[in-house]
């Protein structure tokens, strides 16, 4: 039994004078303890809304949330709000995209960490402060004693995100949701933060949902990848599988739009044409069809089902006319061959 099991989660935004907007439209996935599950997609694909719905942080007004979010046997969507508040920060925690705006600008870092410790672990005074110092030390902030009394704007971007991670991990949550944790950071800092998350998550056996649009992050970190488009999962496989045999034209488009150092000079990028606003509803078609180079007649008349892909193992796909993996994945596969990702079993060697 997975730690977190999201089943048929849907979020509808009410719109004045219009039909409700399906931000998330029947998403299901499981996260097991110690595993990292990636939600990938461009802006508007519903990945952040999914995470906010799991945490029940969406405003009550104007939203309808359906489905089941089973966390260790409890349906988070059906417990009273007071109970949910007890779980947030203690059992489930979240890291946000922009660490500067996610930290309170008028309260020192230390106080923001001890606040969580006091709330969930009943710590007081010096004990809480010592624990906060240890936490800052664990996430690799130098001179934690001094940093405790500093404000968010006095820290560098990387340190801010480390402080956010310290806060999120303060109560050893069993599930950590990271919503684009490295998007606002420098490339070198990105790598540091990701390896820090990786280490901490595996050390503590924490389950993690990694939300990102960066396939580089996915490649290095996630055990399983869910590619989302217009509120639905369009492709799911483990990370090797998805890079080796990307079959949904959207996944394929995402991979093709990454510039590569080893591509010949002058070669053009291949962006996915159009934008999310070109979608058609999933109900009677494939939402991606208007932007899809592989679209066939069925794509605009029927809604594709999420079923095993023609190629690969444990690979689910929502497409009528998948891309031939041999033909397209070539570039990605070539890269896999030149720099193989270490298999997860080697993770014990880290540190």
């Amino acid at each position: 039994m997975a730690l977190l099991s999201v089943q048929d989660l849907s979020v509808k935004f009410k719109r004045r004078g219009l039909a409700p907007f399906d931000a998330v439209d029947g998403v299901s996935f499981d996260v097991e303890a110690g595993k990292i599950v990636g939600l990938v997609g461009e802006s508007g694909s519903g990945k952040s809304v999914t995470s906010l719905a799991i945490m029940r942080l969406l405003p009550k007004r104007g939203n309808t949330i359906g489905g089941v979010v089973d966390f260790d046997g409890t349906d988070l969507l059906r417990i009273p709000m007071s109970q949910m508040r007890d779980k947030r920060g203690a059992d489930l925690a979240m890291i946000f995209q922009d660490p500067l705006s996610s930290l309170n600008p008028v309260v020192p870092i230390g106080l923001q960490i001890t606040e969580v410790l006091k709330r969930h672990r009943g710590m007081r005074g010096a004990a809480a402060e010592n624990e906060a110092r240890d936490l800052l030390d664990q996430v690799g902030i130098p001179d934690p004693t001094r940093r405790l009394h500093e404000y968010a704007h006095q820290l560098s971007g990387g340190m801010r995100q480390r402080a956010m991670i310290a806060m999120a991990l303060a109560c050893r949550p069993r599930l950590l949701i990271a919503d684009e944790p490295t998007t606002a950071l420098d490339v070198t800092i990105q790598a540091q933060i990701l390896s820090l998350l990786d280490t901490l998550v595996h050390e503590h056996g924490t389950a993690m949902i990694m939300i990102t649009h960066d396939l580089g992050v996915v490649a290095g970190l996630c055990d399983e990848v869910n590619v989302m488009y217009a509120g639905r999962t369009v492709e799911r496989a483990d990370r090797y599988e998805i890079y080796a045999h990307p079959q949904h034209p959207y996944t394929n488009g995402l991979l093709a739009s990454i510039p590569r150092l080893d591509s010949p000079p002058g070669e053009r990028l291949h962006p996915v044409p159009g934008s999310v606003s070109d979608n058609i509803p999933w109900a009677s078609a494939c939402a991606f069809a208007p932007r899809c180079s592989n679209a066939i007649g069925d794509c605009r008349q029927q809604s594709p089902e999420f079923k095993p892909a023609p190629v690969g193992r444990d690979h689910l796909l929502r497409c009528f006319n998948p891309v031939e993996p041999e033909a397209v994945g070539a570039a990605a596969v070539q890269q896999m061959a030149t720099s193989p990702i270490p298999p997860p079993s080697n993770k014990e060697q880290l540190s």
Partner: protein
Amino acid sequence: MVMDRKKERIDALAASGGSASTALLDSEDAKSGGGSIIADAWRRLRVSPVFWVGAIIVLLFLLLAIFADLIAPHDPGQLLLRSQTRLSRNQLAPPQPGFPLGGDLLGRDEFSRLVLGSRQTLLVGVFATAIGLAGGMILGTLAGAFGGVVDTVVMRVVDVMLSIPGLLLAISIAALFTTPSQWSVIIAVAVVQIPVFARLLRGQMLAQRGTDHVLAARALGVRRAPIVFRHMLPNSMSPVIVQATVVVAVSIIDAAALSFLGLGSQDVATPEWGQMLGEAQQKIDSYPALAFWPAGCIVVVALGFTLLGESLREALDPKNRR
């Protein structure tokens, strides 16, 4: 070393994203300045000439009010000059040794009256602002923190109060008191300021509700009360503090207006600038100086607080931070 290879991989993929950004080492300090917001604001205030002019005016005024007893050469209530000099009914005592500004309509020492009048002005300015601030903060916090029905009710009351011109409302409230006193003026002036503070704070609180750090605090399970009082309220205070400084000036002027109209203290022994101005208008044709001194004092003190508020606004503006 497995980690190293992994890092390289991530870097390669991410770096291929385009901009070869300059590596900002994590251990390197962000360009940090000062500590808290207060320290930060002080650094900017220190170099602001507007702040210094305002601060010096306000400081001189405070000293004057505190040491008024020592500075005033005479008893402001005694009719000294009428008895000492031979003047016709319509003549006022001119400036003379010991009486730098001469006498007022009744022959009291004008200078001593001005000096002691500063106390009443300070009293009104401080208390009216404090009461208005307290009332406005309670209403604004309620409306901003709870939203919904509470917000609607509070804000409609505030709208009604704001729809009446401030001075008119103050006059009406002051007129309700059967025995006008300094306190009836203070309360009248304070009540007018409550909706101003309430509306300002409510708007700030609403903006805070949608911020990332409030969302992040909620995601960590922080309870409602600390969210309101530690995360939302302190971040909403900057414009309120600025407004409070400006309101001191407005209160002083409003209070002077009420006294001028005879709605203030009727106690002749405690001089008040507005009241002095009211008396002086009887002889404004022949003795304009009599009106000039209290009016000038009101203007200068109000200007001092306004300048102070302006410089605070500059210093606390989040756009200028860092």
